[in-house]
């Protein structure tokens, strides 16, 4: 049984590699479906299904994998931002933002808001990060939509996002933040 403990080391690259591996495996089996069906190599529960039915299930699996990967990337990015907030409000690694974060931390305690307290403060203190943070803020509603069941139309920055987009946007923002100051 997995142990549920605080993970202090988060890694967007690792999440994206996980997604790529899952997609690769899924697609490899999808490509082999006709042979697997002919050769009776499929697990028992799939043996009565037609090729079309199986392909629909694989397409659905890809869609859910994409949702899961986007949520995983977005929550990992949020964890990185919050861990960074914690670090920067205690140490003068980036003096310009240290005082602001320390003040916010004292005022809000454990109720630090991702957008208002963290992202907007980054934009105010380091305007060079603004573009990449705005892109990320455009994708944040997707996190809520994915985490809470997708039953409404989210107001997101772009008409559509792929998993790669979410990864690119989050990575770019974190890189810009690291370079800032």
């Amino acid at each position, binding site marked *: 049984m997995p142990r549920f403990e605080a993970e202090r080391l988060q890694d967007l690259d690792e999440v*994206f590699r996980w997604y*790529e591996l899952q997609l690769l495996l899924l*697609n490899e089996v999808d*490509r082999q479906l006709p042979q697997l069906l002919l050769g009776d190599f499929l697990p028992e529960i799939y043996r009565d299904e037609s090729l079309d039915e199986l392909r629909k299930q694989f397409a659905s699996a890809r869609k859910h994998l994409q949702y899961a990967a986007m949520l995983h990337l977005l929550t990992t990015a949020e964890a990185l931002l919050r861990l960074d907030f914690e670090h920067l409000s205690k140490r003068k690694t980036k003096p310009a933002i240290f005082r602001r974060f320390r003040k916010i931390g004292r005022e809000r305690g454990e109720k630090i808001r991702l957008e208002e307290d963290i992202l907007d403060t980054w934009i105010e203190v380091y305007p060079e990060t603004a573009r990449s943070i705005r*892109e990320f803020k455009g994708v944040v509603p997707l996190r809520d939509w994915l985490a809470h069941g997708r039953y409404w139309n989210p107001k997101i920055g772009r*008409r559509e996002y792929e998993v*790669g987009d979410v*990864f690119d946007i989050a990575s770019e923002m974190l890189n810009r933040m690291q370079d800032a100051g």
Partner: protein
Amino acid sequence: MKSTQSDEVKDFLLSRQQHAPGNENGGKERRREWIAAVKRLYQKVTDELLAESIAQGLVTVSRVQKEIKEEYLGTYRVPELVLDIGGETVRFSPKGRNIIGAQGRVDLVGELDTITLVLDTAEDWSIVLARVPRRAVALNGKTLAEALRRVMR
């Protein structure tokens, strides 16, 4: 009358004006260049990289219009290039001009996966074969074949 307005304020307002959605001149020009670059990409694919296969009837080509809305560029229509390869459809679908680290992006969308193509200069397109670690290679017959294998059944 002598102006009392500071140069800093003037510069700031000028930069805002240049980026305002209403200022169509810069946006129109960038949009025109971007759409031209997309069309040149399609020409390279159909007239060079897949020319023989198209002539042999292995690949059928069509185009459909797509609408894109982008900051500073406004809303515009750009073609998607649709390839029918043995009954399976693959689309070159433009994503936009405002891309970090590139001058534009078109996705190659298949039934199993999507691969990103980025415009490096006005003429040069690269295929992003991996994001971690990032591996982008120049678009040519070999790399297009690799990309098609990835996105198709």
